[in-house]
């Protein structure tokens, strides 16, 4: 056997057509395992390279062609492009309009879309409920008397956490509308002054400038202005009014007895779920201290709480307290 092929001889085997290469070299490559392996390796490497190159460029070319077709479909003529755009868009618009004019489509749209008539009557604020407040302070607010009522709120009740000295409000002596103590806020609290864990000003755990756990600028656990939680009115569907269980007769005030004053005090109150009257308000006052006496008496009354659908709920009740001199 002749000696191994030189690299040039190997190369010429690859480059030239098989027939054109010298016969002896071809024979040697076939016979000699080493040269044959080297030749095979070289050829396979070149084959892989060719294939890889073709795949790669084919892929890159297809991507490019795709983009070209996307933006170059009508590139031959701007006039043609403009016209076809107009046609396509015009046809689509016409179809949309045409479909909109069909009766079945209109009916289907009416059925699918719920039309809601806007509320046209003037807005009537409901004055019930109330409470809320707090200044994100960790302590619960102290519970005691309510501040005075007003038709409009300018300054929400709050306690000043830094009190350097005791403050005493100046007062005069006179009759004034008396509010029931709902036992939810004390702006005069001295120890651990706190506005409660709520937010938005005010005192308590609720929000928005009131007092108590509710929301809004009122007091109690309802919302909006006013006092107390939201209570039901007797006569509302499913609501059964409270029934009086225990009554305490009011006492006469000294002034009224001297003046031989008699009549009826009408009070509105909310009977809570425990049957206790809360949020007592005077509807028709009588004067001469009898209003206070009436409230004091009614506060001790006990009711069977009103129900709605069998469940105890707070219900508003109106009671008349009569004062008669025998």
């Amino acid at each position, binding site marked *: 056997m002749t000696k191994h092929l030189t690299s040039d001889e190997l190369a*010429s085997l690859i480059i030239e057509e098989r027939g054109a290469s010298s016969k002896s070299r071809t024979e040697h490559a076939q016979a000699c395992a080493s040269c044959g392996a*080297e030749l095979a*390796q070289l050829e396979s*490497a*070149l084959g892989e390279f060719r294939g*890889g*190159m073709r795949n790669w460029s084919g892929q890159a070319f297809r991507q490019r062609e795709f983009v070209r077709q996307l933006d170059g479909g009508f590139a031959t003529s701007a006039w043609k492009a403009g016209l076809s755009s107009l046609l396509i868009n015009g046809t689509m618009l016409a179809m949309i309009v045409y479909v909109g004019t069909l009766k079945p489509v209109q009916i289907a749209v009416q059925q699918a879309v719920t039309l809601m008539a806007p509320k046209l009557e003037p807005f009537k604020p409901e004055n019930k409920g109330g409470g809320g407040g707090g200044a994100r302070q960790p302590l619960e607010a102290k519970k005691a008397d309510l501040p005075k009522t007003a038709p409009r709120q300018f300054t929400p009740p709050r306690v000043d956490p830094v009190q350097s000295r005791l403050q005493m409000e100046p007062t005069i002596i006179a009759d004034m509308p008396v509010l029931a103590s709902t036992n939810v806020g004390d702006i005069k609290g001295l120890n651990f002054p706190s506005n409660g864990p709520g937010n938005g000003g005010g005192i308590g755990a609720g929000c928005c400038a009131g007092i108590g756990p509710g929301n809004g600028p009122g007091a109690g656990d309802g919302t909006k202005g006013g006092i107390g939680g939201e209570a039901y009115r007797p006569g509302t569907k499913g609501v059964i009014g409270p029934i009086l269980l225990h009554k305490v007769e009011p006492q006469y005030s000294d002034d009224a007895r001297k003046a031989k004053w008699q009549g009826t005090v009408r009070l509105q109150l909310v009977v809570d779920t425990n049957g206790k009257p809360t949020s007592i308000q005077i509807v028709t006052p009588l004067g001469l201290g009898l209003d206070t006496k009436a409230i004091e008496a009614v506060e001790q009354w006990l009711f069977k709480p009103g129900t709605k659908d069998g469940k105890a709920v707070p219900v508003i009740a109106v009671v008349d307290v009569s004062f008669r001199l025998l």
Partner: protein
Amino acid sequence: MDTVAQHFTLQGVSDFDSLVRQHRPRVFRFLLASVRDREVAENLTQDCFIRAYKARAGFRGDASGATWLMQIAANLARDHHGSSRLKFWRRTVNSGVDVADLSDWIPDKQRSPEAEAAAKEQVRAVWSAAQSLSERQRTVFLLRFVEDMELLEIAAVTGMKEGTVKAHLFRALNAVRAELSHDLPSAQEKKQ
């Protein structure tokens, strides 16, 4: 094979369109392999057909359309190579990405992961060998082994003699062999 002369006897734009459609992938492939940068290859492909379109009157029809287009492409690749010597850094970065690209595109046959890794390694070796060649050698190498052109066709495209083309191919193959045996020690052992 269609000749450009046949295309141009009609002197119609649509005929040139069909010429472009027919030869565009091939021209693009050659330029991509030559310049190793997709963006540049795309631009050069465009340039190639623009040049061909402008020079269509001067085409004598004594070679096939493919050869004529390849000739233009080879000239463009050479010009690009000459002008981009200063853009050394940019080319280095781009070609670094392209090597990875190319070895990902090996022909998709059903084969074991080892065989695939070996094939990738082979492609990488050939690719880096091609990069180490001079511009003329690489052109000849690519025309022969990627485009499968005959020696005479290559001679016509590059304007060299057949013997010169052969000599370039010998050198290119030696470089590939050296790179392969460098990467695959088994081949080196066998050689000794």
